[in-house]
């Protein structure tokens, strides 16, 4: 059996491609099944939510759970908190990382490589292994149990700096030189020439940060105590605990609501999500 035969669509080749398709479709069912179950169960009445068989098609949808979730818990507050935290971190990191990434790529200053080396070293250290000192610092700044506890420590990022630096590194130096001859200041060269060209990298960084901080559970669990400061993931887990198994459809309505912004963003900016996954690899 030669590969030429397969390329030409020989019988064996066609058979194996068919098998491949079946495997892919099965995998798609496994990937989508739980999400579909979550969505359709959120549209069943609380009374029948946990009765089997599940309903895979919402033929008789009951949207009551979506209003119930707002009445039974302050999910509106969770939504607002998550939005504030995520938006502030995304904006903050975009500013700090674009500036520092640009400096490490384009500007000469003493100690540049040493400082960048320290940044690279901190990138290797997982958050969970340093959470105790971070907690102590956050506490000493009086930030515990406030959204600032989540936002302020996340305003700078070694990874974000690295990502932006890699992007600026591939830009031609000549553009800046030309602008300099025309009398542009250092900041103008950055803002008017290079920062504008960095839009795709900024989008990738923003999407990565949105995904990470919108979904974050660990730091909220540690830094937040009162319900009115909870973000969505923490609030939903609390909601699951409070309501027990009685009205899982209400909990699932909350889960679906929490996913809506991510899905919407994915629909419009899928490219940058994919970019974000491959961003770290140096290839």
């Amino acid at each position, binding site marked *: 059996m030669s590969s030429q035969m397969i390329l030409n669509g020989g019988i064996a080749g066609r058979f194996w491609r068919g098998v491949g398709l079946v495997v892919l479709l099965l995998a798609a069912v496994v990937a989508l099944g*739980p999400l579909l179950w979550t969505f359709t169960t959120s549209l069943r009445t609380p009374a029948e939510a946990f009765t089997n068989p599940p309903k895979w098609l919402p033929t008789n949808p009951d949207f009551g759970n979506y209003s119930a979730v707002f009445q039974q818990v302050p999910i509106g507050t969770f939504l607002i908190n998550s939005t504030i935290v995520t938006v502030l971190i995304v904006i903050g990191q975009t500013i*700090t990382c674009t500036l*520092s990434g640009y400096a490490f790529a384009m500007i000469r200053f003493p100690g540049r490589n040493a400082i960048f080396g320290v940044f690279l070293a901190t990138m290797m250290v997982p958050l969970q292994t340093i959470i*105790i000192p971070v907690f102590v610092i956050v506490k000493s700044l009086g930030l515990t149990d406030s959204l600032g506890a989540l936002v302020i420590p996340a305003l700078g990022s070694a990874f974000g700096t690295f990502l932006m630096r890699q992007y600026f590194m591939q830009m031609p130096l000549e553009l800046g030189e030309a602008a300099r001859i025309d009398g542009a200041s250092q900041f103008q060269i950055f803002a008017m020439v290079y920062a504008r060209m960095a839009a795709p990298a900024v989008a990738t960084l923003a999407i990565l940060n949105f995904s990470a901080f919108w979904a974050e559970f660990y730091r909220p669990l540690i830094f937040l105590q009162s319900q009115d400061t909870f973000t969505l993931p923490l609030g939903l887990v609390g909601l*699951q605990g409070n309501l027990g198994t009685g009205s899982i459809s209400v909990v699932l309505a909350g889960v679906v609501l929490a996913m809506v912004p991510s899905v919407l963003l994915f629909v419009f900016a899928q490219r940058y999500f994919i970019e974000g996954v491959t961003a770290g690899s140096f290839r």
Partner: protein
Amino acid sequence: MSTLAPPRSGNARPLRTDPGGRPRRGTRRLARREAGFGFLIISPAVLFVAVFTLAPMIASVALSFFSWDVITPPRFVGLDNFERIVRDDAVVSSFGTTLLLAFGIVVVQLVVGLGLAVLVNQRRRPAAKTFFRTTFYLPLLASTAAVSIFMGYMFDMKFGVINYYLNAVGLPSVPWLTSTWGAIVTIILIAAWQQVGFTFVMFVAALTSLPTDVLEAAAMDGAGPVRTLFGVKIPLISPTILFATVVAMINALQLFDQPFIMTKGGPGTATTTATIVMYQTGFQNLQFGYASAIASVLLVIILAITGLQFLAARKWAFYR
């Protein structure tokens, strides 16, 4: 594929000289001004990274040698915390659990991710590729907390939809989250289910960017699809496989959300990971020194496993 270029060495940049060839003093002044601007614009990132990453890194290691209950001042205890870890069965077994779960998650994530990537790569129609790529990425859009919630319901022993379908085809109910091995396997599957999209997307990108001349040459030499896959394609994407393995492993070794939410580390301590023990020690029992020592050990384990992967990769990873 990626818009992010490979890193260029900082030293490769040509020295900036004034185009007009002005006197040296002017160049030096310009250089000083440029350096000042550099320091100014790195300062926000440096400040935040120094205060919230670098300082905690050092403090975490330092705290490992202290006993601290947060209320009274820390007391230096030398290596006591580390001696205690070695004798503390709960902590030692949590490291074992962490390694077991992480290994399981990474293996499933790599094998399934690679398999699906190869199959999707064979599809000819772009619409099919887009459909599968979107589908396998979707679980990543949910938070781990949300996944833990709905999977907890689905894998419920009595009411869960999984056992319902098992019963429907005549199989007995499985204690997914309420037996030792059930909980271990279920958490591996649930974590891998969500994370497969990550390795999958990386592998698809790598496979798509393979040079066609090499594949054509393999076909000319009479290599079948299986030989082409194992003899050409996989060796060529081995750097990506290494990178995906390292990243997936670092994440899996910090596993917290799924066992914390679905099993509370149980049944018993079956799914109590190192990060859960750290959380309990630090934030429930307020033993900050001891918890820091556990964190330091975890960090050393993570760095050691990462290093081992790079060492092992010298044997099998193939760099063009």
